């Protein structure tokens, strides 16, 4: 099916995004965000999980956590382009929450063959994160370091996003029948979560170990279901980068319009003006590719993989570029802990690598465009 001209972004999608922007503005304006997550500047601080569970509870009440549960399983059946708008708003607010991971898990479950128990838990308001990366940070389930013996898990999953916030984990484990997805309650006996010390203050990440943990099998082919969901995850992550990028751009524009040197606002000088225009164009590229990828996932299956790689390849560059220019154009103040820019700078550095960096996505893209390199 061909893509609609407007990406399928309809009035409902626009309303959801507007609602989300207002919600995040009200609940966690940037000064409160800074007070919440940046209270300790010590570089070697112990890892903490700073967030407001009461904001997440409201998000669940609003139905946001079930947006990627298919309609026939009791979800809302909104197209992914609408979800992208919500994630763009969350990225703009840099709000710490398990929303993106829960939505990502819903996307993976949508491609699993026996996922009902997972959907039921999400519909009950449970949050969940994907646990599948290996110690080298490979975002492919094939290298998972968790094993399943029967339905009992042992081993370790690395780089698990929002592990400190979620109720449950969707774990890829090597079983007799190949690599499969298993549902584990985080509170189960034998699960230990060791928080990573990460640069991003607006998210958390952990190394999660499993010692003889009983689990529920939800999907028998983790590789295929993750591959099918990955383009959608890329689209949502790219939307987050766009939201954070817009905050960085507009905050920097405001600053260089006020701050004067040589008797003129900084933004008068082309050495400042032109890089900011380049940031704007980079954000626009990523935004267009994010909504294109979401739309392809919704209704243009043959182009889904390519569109997902395009979106995240662009997003990784835009994350880096928008962040670095914001600090640079703020000058000395941009380099301080008290300036809010570092919160977004760090979120973008984290987003850049999440679920595949630019080089990885471009290599996948090249395999589609050229075919694999001849042996």
């Amino acid at each position, binding site marked *: 099916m061909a893509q609609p001209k407007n990406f399928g972004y309809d009035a409902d999608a*626009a309303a959801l995004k507007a609602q989300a922007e207002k919600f995040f503005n009200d609940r966690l304006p940037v000064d409160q965000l800074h007070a919440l997550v940046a209270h300790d500047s010590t570089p070697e601080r112990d890892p903490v999980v700073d967030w407001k569970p009461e904001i997440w509870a409201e998000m669940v009440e609003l139905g946001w956590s079930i947006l990627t549960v298919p309609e026939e399983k009791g979800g809302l059946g909104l197209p992914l382009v609408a979800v992208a708008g919500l994630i763009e708003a969350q990225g703009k607010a840099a709000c710490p929450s398990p929303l993106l991971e829960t939505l990502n898990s819903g996307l993976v479950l949508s491609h699993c063959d026996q996922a009902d128990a997972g959907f039921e838990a999400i519909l009950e308001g449970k949050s969940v994160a994907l646990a599948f990366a290996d110690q080298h940070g490979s975002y492919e389930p094939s290298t998972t370091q968790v094993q399943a013996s029967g339905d009992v898990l042992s081993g370790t999953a690395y780089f698990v996003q929002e592990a400190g916030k979620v109720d449950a984990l969707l774990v890829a484990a090597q079983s007799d029948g190949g690599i499969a997805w298993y549902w584990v309650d985080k509170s189960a006996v034998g699960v230990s979560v060791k928080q990573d010390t990460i640069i991003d203050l607006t998210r958390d990440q952990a190394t999660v170990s499993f010692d003889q943990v009983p689990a529920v099998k939800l999907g028998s082919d983790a590789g295929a279901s993750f591959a099918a969901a990955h383009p959608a995850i890329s689209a949502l992550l790219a939307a987050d980068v766009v939201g954070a990028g817009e905050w960085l751009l507009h905050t920097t524009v405001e600053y260089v319009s006020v701050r004067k040197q040589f008797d003129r606002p900084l933004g008068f000088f082309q050495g400042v003006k032109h890089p900011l225009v380049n940031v704007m164009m980079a954000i626009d590229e990523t935004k267009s590719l994010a909504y294109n990828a979401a739309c392809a996932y919704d209704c243009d299956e043959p182009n889904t993989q390519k569109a997902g790689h*395009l979106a995240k390849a662009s997003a990784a560059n835009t994350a880096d570029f928008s962040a670095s220019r914001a600090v640079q154009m703020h000058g000395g103040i941009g380099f301080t802990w008290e300036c809010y820019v570092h919160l977004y700078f760090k979120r973008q550095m984290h987003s850049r690598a999440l679920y595949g960096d630019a080089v990885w996505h471009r290599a996948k893209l090249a395999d589609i465009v050229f075919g694999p390199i001849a042996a």
Partner: protein
Amino acid sequence: MSDGARVDTPEQAAFREHCRSWLAANHPGEPPVRLPQSAIEIMNSDQMDFLQAWQKSAYDAGLVGCDYPEFCGGGGHTSFQRIANDEMIRAKTPILPNVIGLGMAAPTILNHASDELKAELLPRLLSGEDIWCQGFSEPGAGSDLASVQTFAEPTDDGKWVINGHKVWTSLAHFASWMIILVRTDKSHKYDGLSYFVVPIKSALGKGVTVRPLIKMTGELGFNEVLFENLVVDDRMRLDELGKGWQVAMTTLLFERGAGNLDAPRAGGMTSKASFTTSVSAVVKLAKETMRGGKPVSDDPVMRDKIMQELVREEGFIQTSRRGRVPELTDHPMRIPLQGKVQVSELHQRTANLAMEVGGAKGSLYLGDDAALEGGQWTLGYMNSFGFTIAAGTSEVQRNILGERVLGLPKSK
């Protein structure tokens, strides 16, 4: 652009069908001469005669000027031109030679001229019988356009006498008419400007001299134009005296592709083989070009470079699509004002990348049998600078984007 899901109204669908069947039967076929990559590189009358005949036939079939009012020689339709453009490009037709007329002069005249002047000038402009050129830049007025010095002095009998020097004037050597920005008041920089249409061909040797300039490619195509006491009627003035800058802004808006009317466009056929500057053409080149016994497309570094460009190209295509979805942008001019800088820089990088993929063959030029695509990539790379410089340099475009979209302080 993959935009196959666009839904035509019944009228538009019938028009699209008309375009397709007409083009199937009337495509001009193999050109008798090497055709240039764009109209501003037309060198000789063999090329021009062929292209003018093509524009006239497309105009007579209703494929050019569809959205202009009937009294201006147009089709009197709405949103038909975009369909005709799609179909002409799909059919890989020759380009329309009267590009400055169609893209800049016509919308400016439509917005600022008297009905009498519109009816007099536009039909022969749309048909391509009259070629138009643009007299904006001067030796001392490039990016700082408002500093033009060409002066129009009023005569006692209500006419104007024009003296001055315009430069980088594409198509002047074929032009019947010029849109021209002149100074009518030396005491005000912006408010001292006025806008006229003036005859060129009929005034050659009678106040107008056209001298060709040779470009770095070796091609002709643009000129300097000297005015020595050219007398023009006051009725050839567009809009009010002293409003020339505002009229010029209309021209530039359309020149940069940000106007509200689709300019007629065709193309795809440049020589015997069709050629377009696109990343998919670079992909094809990389598969066909051998380096060290292997195709370039098996080199991971070159694959990555080409994919970087693919991301940017697809990003631009999708941004153009998003430009028509107001709910997905925060400023109405944010995307339209990017078009010129994005497309010109994209083509520049893509042509440059093709030369790199071609390796040693990138050194071969037009006329060498072994040149890449007959030398079109090398020619295209050099010509790309015409587009990143003309119509407001990329640097001026970034000033405009920064000031009008981001609201940054003006650099002037």
